[in-house]
């Protein structure tokens, strides 16, 4: 039976709604409206400052069937994610394990490895431009000093993307610190028990340390995937998407199409494609996370 609305109840509702009004307004203006309007603009031909013209799914059709830069961009993006995420995780974890010791001056080492993360990425990337400079750059000077042939670095389709991934590894300190905090949270008594049983170090790492930090590993994996799909600065500063689209990551292509190509409607359609890709990757990772993530409070792995 429906409860009778009394004036007191109505006043309570109004009060409640008034209190959540700022949140509703904020969400509507800053989240819902941009989201819905971007859905609309993705279906228009729009130069950014002129009047949008509704074209249905023409942007998506052009993207998948005509645009010569789209599929190379997708390829480069996946290649980048597959190279940068695992290598960052492995290197970050490796450094964290090395630095998770009580040795004299260990804090200095931690600081040194973390330092590149503090430097603004644009400054770091500009420095790497000089390192990769083909004729007089540090990288080729070192190779020549060792009697090796010059590296092509950013100037070849084969080496440009791996070179960008290499730059990213220089800033692995942020992940290292998170791993370090995870490692320090592993209960000491487990290590002591393993020591008493005479377990070798690699077994301790494999059977105690790694399982205990899988939640951290999972967090880093998700953040790494999302971050890698959204990589931009590296490409903008180092290669501008070249040579021949080999480093034109999708996030950079979106920017380039919008602001240099004045294809705002089209680039918003690309944003939705990127959003879907990230969403799928994240959901799949979550779906299968229970196979490798161990939570102490949860006995069922």
């Amino acid at each position: 039976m429906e409860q009778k609305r009394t004036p007191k109840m109505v006043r309570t509702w109004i009060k409640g709604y008034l209190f959540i009004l700022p949140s509703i307004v904020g969400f509507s203006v800053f989240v819902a409206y941009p989201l819905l309007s971007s859905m609309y603009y993705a279906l228009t031909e729009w130069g950014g400052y002129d009047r949008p013209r509704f074209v249905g799914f023409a942007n998506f059709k052009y993207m998948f069937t005509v645009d010569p830069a789209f599929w190379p961009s997708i390829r480069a993006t996946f290649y980048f994610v597959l190279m940068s995420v695992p290598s960052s995780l492995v290197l970050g974890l490796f450094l964290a394990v090395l630095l998770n010791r009580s040795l004299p001056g260990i804090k200095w080492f931690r600081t040194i490895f973390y330092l590149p993360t503090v430097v603004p990425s644009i400054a770091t990337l500009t420095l790497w431009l000089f390192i990769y400079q083909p004729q007089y750059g540090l990288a080729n000077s070192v190779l020549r000093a060792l009697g090796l042939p010059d590296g092509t670095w950013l100037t070849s389709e084969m080496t440009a993307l791996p070179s960008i991934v290499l730059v990213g590894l220089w800033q692995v300190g942020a992940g290292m610190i998170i791993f370090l905090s995870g490692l320090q949270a592993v209960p000491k008594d487990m290590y002591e028990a393993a020591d008493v049983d005479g377990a070798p170090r690699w077994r301790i790492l494999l059977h105690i340390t790694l399982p205990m930090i899988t939640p951290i590993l999972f967090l880093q994996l998700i953040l790494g995937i999302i971050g890698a799909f959204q990589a931009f600065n590296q490409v903008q500063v180092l290669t501008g998407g070249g040579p021949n689209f080999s480093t034109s990551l999708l996030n950079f292509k979106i920017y380039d199409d919008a602001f240099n190509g004045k294809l705002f409607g089209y680039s918003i359609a690309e944003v939705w494609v990127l959003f879907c890709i990230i969403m799928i990757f994240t959901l799949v990772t979550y779906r299968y996370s229970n196979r490798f993530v161990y939570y102490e409070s949860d006995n069922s792995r």
Partner: protein
Amino acid sequence: MNRRTYKNVTAFMVILPMAGALVGCGGSGSGGGNSNANAPAPADSGKAQSVEVTLMTWESAEMNNKIMASMQKFEQDNPGITVKLIPTPLDNYGVKLNGMIAAKKAPDIFMTGNDMVLDNGAQGLLYDWSQQAGNDQTFMNGFYPGVLDSWHIGDKLVGLPGLLNTYGIFYNKKLFKDAGLAEPKIGWTYDEFFADMQKLSSKKGGVQQYGYYAAPDPFNVSLYSVSAGGAPFADSISNPTKVTISPQFIEGADRYKDAVKNGYMNPPTYDLTNVMSSFKEGKVGMTYQGQWVADDLIRTAPKDLEWGFVPQPVVQSQAEIYDAVGWCSPASIQHPDAVWKVLKYLDSSMYAEVLPQTPVAPAAYKTSASAYFDALKTAGHPDLGEAIDHILNSKNIQPIRFLTTWGGKAYPFITATWPNVMGGKADDSQLNTMADKINKVIQSAK
């Protein structure tokens, strides 16, 4: 909560967002002359009222200071008109400007490139100066012939060119002499050009030294095609209707391709960022650059570096590339007559005063350009002025890029094909495929 408290809270919750909205809407008008940009533009009355004309450039602070020092003389000669500078870094200038135009907060006069003019003009966002220009024929006749063409959209004059950018080859005189080569002169041929780059290239100490550093694109190779009597790559500067790959174009592309293959010039993916530093160190024989590079060379190159500048070579006839930067106004300006006076001063007196101090480019206005050429003579580079004058007087001018809005969809086809062809990874037939796809983009944009 009692009734009174409830009323107070309700009133507060209603007033707060309204106040916020009002605050958000206020505070405009700091941009100067366009605080009421939607209102119809009244004609300037003859009353002695104070008019502020806002001016936006992408120039450096040093150049802006020189411009504004010159504008003080304008203000003295035109009491009642003050000019206020809105300095804006060049980085993302177009994005910022487009946003200002869309928000009707654009300054009364802004520096602009030819592509932005055509784009904004086509959308009706720019002021039409036809009437003022028609009443001021003496001033309008002072420009180089033809430079005003690409500042018209239909019968509307949507801006005035300010500076002209020309492109040619900077060369190192000592390296030419050491290689036993004669210095290139106006009218030199492509045969000489390719032979020179071959002799200037070397691989001393394991470091590849190219004879020529450049990234010739289809617009650049188009100069070869046109000079050899072939069709241009794009058939119009301001509004191309088709692109063509003529046999002469293929011939030019093949010659560059061979130069790359043989190590006479850099490959298409080569990083050219530091070429001018190497040029200053005397390590570069020839490099293709805009004439503005000369200003830096004059001021900062080592005194013992002997360099020259020469226009592009020819096959049969002269064909050149140049483009213009200039000045425009939004359609919503309030005081067109005052703005027109400032525009005239910028193009004539301002450049005549500033360019001798900072010789970056020839002015589109001839008397100001002569001040630029004089400055080059004084700096010991009369050959540079002669070469630029030769380029500007060319009867055949080709576009430097696609200026139209569909360019964003056309360029990826060039990027996807051109480096592969130049690098020898794809054959010449790919150029025709590239042209077909660009032509489809042009057709779909109509």
